[in-house]
């Protein structure tokens, strides 16, 4: 199986080469090339996606077993590229308005993107770590991108220090696992663990450290402390990026890690996932109630959403994995739409972030308010919006796996979560209007919002396609 066939890695290689080219263009032409670099990288994402579609998605293991390319990796990469495209579409105008338009931004995004794409196809614990660090380091810089602002710098530092801690934990976990099994390769690891009658406590410890570090990356409770602060402090377009893409990649990584090498020891990790999931759902629902800042609210909402996605992993089944993939697609699309609205919250040339700033939006900007309301109902999982079907699949998998407690906890917290999503709708529709927001939405943002709303509303009419794709993708993790 060991070969030096680079074809499956073409999309990443292409992105890496163009990222360097964009960097050179940026350096030589200065900051007025930012818009060009933005659009160029958007085109790059599309081209990379086309290359990805063109590459055969058979099970291929490349670079001496470092990376695996299968249906799951291929599909997750497509989602990541979509997320990158959406994030850059959301960022352009915002950075201009905020006066922090610099060419490093799209380049860093691309670098993070490469890291994420490698994360979902990592087939070796070392590859996992390298890919994760490539992603994280780019994200740390992005969080602190508004250099002049204390809040943004604080967000960057906070994210960096806690992120470094979690990376250390991951590395420590990897070293323990290596020490007890003598291998870093997923395939060998799986073969070593399978015949084991009792699992050495060292491996369990290693796994716990590994999962704790990864839980930090998806901001699962109790490793979520950084999320609200970073979401609030980072420039909103970066927040959007954080909310949309890295979560998807990290979930993909966790799924491959748990369902492939550690599948045979699921008894060691399913309780951890269970706890992460339950606590994320509870904290995500209750802590969001008291938030006044919409970015903080969305931070808690994303914590809760990761909790729901983890329910699917805790089910330890193909149906569960398929549900997670579907949930992630729907989450990504809904969140993009929500951030398109949040990015448009500007008054007198300045961004406003309080929920009360949305007051009476249904009268000042009805279309925006309707879109937001639809997305909020979808986020709270009310049928017939797409968000409901994501939750339906998740809970169906949970019930099938007889995890009734988690399922009931999930639906009850979703009612609590509905309370704060409704609050946004209430502010927009029931309250007396605040002054209108500035101007119309730029084209790219409007397109993202429109597509997101159309997806959310239209999903009910043709749900099969997305579900089948998600199931196929997840099926790759469960051979036979």
């Amino acid at each position, binding site marked *: 199986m060991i070969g030096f066939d680079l074809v499956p890695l073409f999309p990443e290689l292409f992105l890496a080469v163009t990222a360097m080219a964009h960097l050179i263009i940026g350096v030589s032409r200065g900051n007025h090339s930012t818009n060009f670099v933005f659009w160029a990288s958007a085109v790059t994402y599309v081209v990379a996606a086309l290359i990805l579609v063109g590459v055969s998605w058979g099970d291929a293991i490349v670079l001496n077993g470092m990376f695996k390319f299968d249906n799951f990796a291929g599909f997750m990469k497509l989602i990541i590229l979509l997320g990158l495209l959406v994030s850059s579409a959301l960022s352009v105008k915002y950075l201009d308005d905020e006066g922090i338009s610099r060419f490093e931004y799209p380049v860093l995004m691309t670098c993070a993107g490469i890291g994420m794409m490698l994360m979902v196809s990592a087939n070796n614990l070392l590859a996992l770590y390298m890919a994760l660090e490539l992603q994280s380091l780019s994200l740390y810089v992005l969080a602190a991108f508004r250099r002049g602002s204390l809040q943004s710098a604080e967000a960057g530092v906070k994210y960096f220090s806690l992120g470094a801690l979690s990376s250390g934990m991951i590395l420590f976990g990897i070293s323990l696992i290596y020490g007890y099994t003598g291998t870093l390769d997923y395939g060998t690891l799986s073969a070593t663990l399978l015949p084991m009658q009792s699992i050495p406590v060292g491996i369990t410890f290693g796994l716990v450290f590994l999962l704790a570090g990864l839980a930090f990356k998806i901001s699962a409770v109790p490793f979520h402390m950084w999320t609200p602060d970073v979401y609030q402090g980072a420039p909103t377009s970066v927040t959007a990026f954080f909310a949309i893409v890295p979560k998807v990649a990290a979930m993909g990584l966790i799924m491959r890690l748990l369902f492939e090498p550690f599948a045979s020891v699921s008894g060691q990790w399913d309780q951890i996932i269970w706890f992460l999931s339950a606590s994320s759902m509870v904290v995500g629902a209750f802590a969001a109630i008291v938030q006044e800042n919409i970015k903080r609210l969305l931070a808690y909402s994303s914590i809760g959403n990761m909790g729901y996605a983890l329910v699917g992993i805790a089910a330890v089944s193909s149906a569960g994995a398929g549900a997670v993939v579907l949930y992630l697609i729907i989450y990504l699309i809904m969140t993009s739409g929500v951030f398109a609205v949040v990015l448009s919250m500007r008054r007198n040339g300045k961004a406003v972030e309080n929920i009360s700033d949305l007051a009476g939006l*249904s009268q000042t900007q009805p279309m925006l308010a309707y879109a937001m309301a639809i997305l909020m*109902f979808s986020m709270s999982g*009310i*049928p*017939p919006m797409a968000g*409901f*079907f994501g939750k*339906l*699949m998740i*809970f*169906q998998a949970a*019930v*099938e796996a007889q995890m*009734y407690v988690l*399922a*009931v906890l999930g*639906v*009850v917290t*979703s*009612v609590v979560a*509905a*309370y704060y999503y*409704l609050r946004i*709708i*209430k502010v927009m*529709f*029931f309250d007396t209007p605040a002054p209108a927001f500035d101007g119309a939405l730029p084209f790219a943002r409007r397109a993202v919002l429109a597509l997101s709303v159309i997806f959310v509303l239209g999903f*009910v009419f043709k*749900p*099969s396609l997305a*579900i*089948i794709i998600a*199931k196929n993708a997840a099926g790759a993790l469960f051979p036979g």
Partner: protein
Amino acid sequence: MAGLPILSIMTFLPLIGVLIILMIRGEEEAVARNSRYAALYTSLFTFAFAVYMFLNFDGSTADFQFVEKAEWLRPLGIGYHMGVDGISMFFVLLSAFLTPVCIISAWDSIEKRVREYMVAFLVLECFMIGTFCALNSILFYVFFEGVLIPMFIIIGVWGGPRRVYASYKFFLYTLLGSVLMLIALLVLMAKTGTTDIPTLMANPVAPSLQIWLWLAFFASFAVKLPMWPVHTWLPDAHVEAPTAGSVILAGVLLKMGGYGFLRFSLPIMPDASAFFGPYMLWLGVIAIIYTSLVALVQEDMKKLVAYSSVAHMGYVTIGVFTGTVQGIEGGIFQMISHALISGALFLCVGVVYDRLHTREISRYGGIVGNMPLYAFIMMVFMLGSVGLPGTSGFVGELLTLMGAFQINTLATLFASTGLVLGAAYMLLMYRRVVLGPPVNQDAIEMPDMNKREIGLLFPIAAMVLWLGIFPNTVMDRIGPSVDKLVADYQKHVKIELEMTVDVEGKKEEGAE
């Protein structure tokens, strides 16, 4: 027209109306006017289809009719399956009838955001009809739950002073009940491998599982119906909702609870229903007596009618869980009759509210002099609500109590006191509002009903009387479906009884 997918047309026609309304452009006033007409015509078309369905409904069979099947959530084995039987057909008709009524009733009284109002009502109609037509449990859930969205907006945007509180309470209360039902539906799906309601009805699940499932369904339907003690959202929602919102709430949304019991609890979980049946009877009795007493002391007309709704729904609970043909037929009839009477009573309250902008009973009095037509029409509905023979209210209550008498005489005795209490609070209100000495000058200067209001209320009054005199219009059509439901149910209950008798018999043998 035989091959027409009539149920889908009725369900989705309102959405086409929504699209048309959203495309209306122009001055605000023109938009408002055109939205009103577009909504009215759409709902009238839908009603026309509903009448067509009613006329072509075959009342001699218990099978589902106008059945449609299509692929939907294929990977989960969930299909799009629609159909009506005797039980659901009248609720579809009711939904299609009350929507145009609501739209006409809001013609002048809603002045702001007319377009949104009409959109909300048409979306609501789509979900309501879908709920009663759906023959797949997940599809049912989608419609059942979707209802919350437009209703939340209706109460919250066009409601009274405490509208935010009321809309939240309505939404979260019902959502909490429903999500538990979702889990139950998923458990059913995992255990039986199907979400098709007719298949589920033919093969009830194992008795040991039924108890938990039944409780989860109960959580949803009891809140929706609403039953005591989870009824507290209803008075708030009714009082704050605009008139048309109250009409739909009382007319259709509450019926979803009763319909759910008949469609899910009784046929799919017969053993659990039999087990919990006696408790349900008593809960119904408590609801009747308690809420009637509460209604007696209300000062707000809408709140009084709202509490009377809870009391009337108590009869429905009793009727459904007697498990007898009379009881269930009475329960269904009571629901239909209550939808008309209570909806009309809310419209009556709306008529005077539009004139004086208060619902306080003591602000009126002696208006019979200046509003004779109103006094007459209100009397019809008031007597219907009391259950006077000759009105539809009588038939439902009588049948329910007949059914209950075969099961539990004591509970029936207490439930009957509700008739007396009902007469007390209704007549009291009528006396204080319509008769009595004219104390408030502005109240006795109110003009009588206009043509729109007459056109709205008289047909409903005619229907109330028609159903009271010729109840067979309904009974003939629901008969076969109810017979089948009861036959299946009794079969299970008998098996259960025989089993318990067997066990007891063996014990005795062992003792000897």
